[in-house]
C-alpha cells in the first residue's frame, strides 16, 4: 500500500518555498543587469552624435543666454584606448601564449602546477595593486604619466587570461593530430608551431579577445598610470585619455552636458566589451560544437 508520510504536507510547503526562493534569486540577479544595460543603451544612445566620434573634449562654456555649449566628443578617448590596449596586447600575447603552450605541452609537473597557481593568483590580484606597481616602476622613474605605463599594467592583467585560454584550447587539439606529426619524426617544437598552434588559432584568438575585453574596461590602473588627457594625443609616452577614464571623469563633473557624454562613453565602452565577449564566446562555441 502506497501511503504518503504523515509530515509530507509541511515538507512539500518547504520544498515549494525554497524553489520559489531560487527562482526569485535568479530573477533578482537579472534585474540590475537589465536596468544597467537599459539605462546605458537609452541614455547613451541619446547623447551619441557625429561630433561624439569625431571631436575631442571642448571646455563647456556658458553663453550669454545661459545655455552651455556642446562639450565636444570622445575621439581622444577612443584613440587613447586603442593605443593603450593595443600596446598591452603586444606585450601580453607572446608571454601569455608561450606560457600557455608550456602548460599544455608539459602539463604534469611541479613547475607547471606553480605556473597555473601563479596565473590564478595573478588573475585575482586587485587591478589597483597592479596599477600601483606600474606607477612605481614607470611613472615614478620617468617622472611622467604615460600611456605606456598603462599598457604595462593592462598587459599584466591580460596575461593570466591569455595563458589559461591557450592552455585549455591546446589541450583540446586531438592527440591524433599531434601523434601523426610525431610519428613522422617531426620534432616537438615544429609540431607545436606547424600543427598544434594553427589548429588552435581560433582558441588563441578567443583568449586575446577575452583579454582585450577585460583590459578595455579596466579603469583603476589607468588612473595611476595614464592619468587622462583632455586633448587628442597619439604618443604612448605622454598622458592619454581612455574611454573608461572619460566615463569616470564625466560622471563626477557637475555639468549635465558632461554627464550625457559619460552615458555616451559608457554605451560605447559597454557595447565594445560585451560584443567582444560575445564574439569570443561564439568563436569557442563553434570550435567546441
Amino acid at each position, binding site marked *: *500500500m*502506497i*501511503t*504518503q*508520510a*504523515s*509530515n*509530507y504536507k509541511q*515538507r512539500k510547503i518547504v520544498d515549494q518555498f525554497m524553489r520559489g526562493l531560487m527562482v526569485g534569486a535568479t530573477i533578482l540577479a537579472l534585474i540590475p543587469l537589465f536596468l544597467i544595460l537599459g539605462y546605458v543603451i537609452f541614455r547613451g544612445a541619446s547623447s551619441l552624435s557625429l561630433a561624439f566620434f569625431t571631436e575631442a573634449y571642448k571646455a563647456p562654456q556658458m553663453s550669454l543666454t545661459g545655455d552651455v555649449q556642446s562639450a565636444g566628443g570622445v575621439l581622444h578617448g577612443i584613440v587613447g584606448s586603442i593605443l593603450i590596449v593595443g600596446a598591452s596586447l603586444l606585450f601580453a600575447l607572446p608571454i601569455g601564449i608561450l606560457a600557455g603552450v608550456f602548460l599544455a605541452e608539459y602539463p604534469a609537473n611541479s613547475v607547471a602546477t606553480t605556473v597555473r597557481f601563479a596565473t590564478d593568483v595573478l588573475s585575482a590580484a586587485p587591478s589597483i595593486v597592479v596599477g600601483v606597481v606600474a606607477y612605481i616602476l614607470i611613472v615614478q622613474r620617468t617622472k611622467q604619466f604615460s600611456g605606456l605605463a598603462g599598457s604595462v599594467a593592462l598587459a599584466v592583467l591580460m596575461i593570466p587570461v591569455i595563458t589559461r585560454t591557450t592552455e585549455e584550447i591546446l589541450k583540446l587539439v586531438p592527440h591524433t593530430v599531434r601523434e601523426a606529426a610525431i610519428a613522422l619524426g617531426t620534432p616537438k617544437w615544429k609540431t607545436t608551431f606547424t600543427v598544434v598552434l594553427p589548429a588552435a588559432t581560433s582558441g588563441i584568438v578567443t583568449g586575446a579577445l577575452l583579454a582585450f575585453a577585460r583590459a578595455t574596461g579596466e579603469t583603476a590602473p589607468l588612473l595611476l598610470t595614464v592619468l587622462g588627457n583632455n586633448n587628442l594625443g597619439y604618443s604612448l609616452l605622454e598622458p592619454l585619455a581612455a574611454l573608461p577614464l572619460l566615463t569616470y571623469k564625466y560622471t563626477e563633473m557637475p555639468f549635465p552636458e558632461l554627464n550625457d557624454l559619460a552615458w555616451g562613453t559608457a554605451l560605447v565602452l559597454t557595447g565594445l566589451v560585451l560584443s567582444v565577449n560575445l564574439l569570443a564566446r561564439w568563436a569557442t562555441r563553434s570550435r567546441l560544437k
Partner: protein
Amino acid sequence: MAKNEANSIHLQDLKPFYGSFQAVAPVNTTFASRAITAMIGPSGCGKSTVIRCINRLHENIPGARVEGKVLLGEQNLYGREMEPQAVRRRIGMVFQQPNPLRMLSIEQNVAIGLKLEGRPKKELAERVEASLRRAALWDEVKDKLRESSLALSGGQQQRLCIARTIALEPEVILLDEPCAALDPISTLKIEDLLLELKQQYTVVIVTHNMQQAARISDRTLVFMVDTSVARPRGLMVEEGETLQIFTAPQDLRTQDYISGRVG
C-alpha cells in the same frame, strides 16, 4: 500467491521514454511478492530503465517520461493523485554503485529516510539497529555508528545502503546491479542477504551476471536489444521460472544469450 497479492507489482503496457524515443517495447509482467525476480540481458536492453520506472525514478532524468501503468496490488503508481515521493518511500532502491551519503555518519545514513519523515529520535535508534542487523552489518559497525560511512569497504557500503532501504520498511526492494562494483565474497554476502529479505519483501534485481540470477532468483525476465526496428530499443523476450529459463529457454535469443553466444 493470492494472499500476498497486495504486494506484487504489475507492469501494464509500460513504455519508458527519453524525450520522444521509446527506450523499451511495451512491457507486461508481474513481480510476485515474497520472491526474487531477476531481470537479465545484455547492456542497453532497457532492464535498468524498466526497474527505475517502478519507483518513479526514471522520470527524474531531464526529458524522460513514462507511459502505461505500474500497479502495486491495486494501486496505480502513475495515478493522478500519486506523488513520486510517496512511491519511493514504499518502494526502496539499491543502486549499482554503493552510494552512502558522504557527509553523514553510518547511523545517519540508515536513519535518513525516517528522519525526513519526522519520526521521533527513540524510534530512529531502534530502527537503525534493527535495519543494520537485518542487513547483517550490525556486528561490523556497532562500535563506529558515528563514524563516516566512507570508512567502510565497498561491500559493507552496499549493505549499508540496503539497511537504509529497509529502515523504511518498504513493500518492495529494487536492486539495480547491486553487486557490479563488488568482489566475489561481498557479492555472496549480499546474495545471502537477499534470500533472507525475500521472506518478507517483493525483491526485483537487475543483474548482468547470469550465475547470480540462477543462484538466487525464483523468476527471471530476459531482455534483449531489438534491432528489427529503426532505432534499436529494449525488448522483453521471455519470462518464466528461473529453472525453466536456464534449462529450457523457449526463445532462440535467450538460448544464445545464456549459452554465451551473444551479449
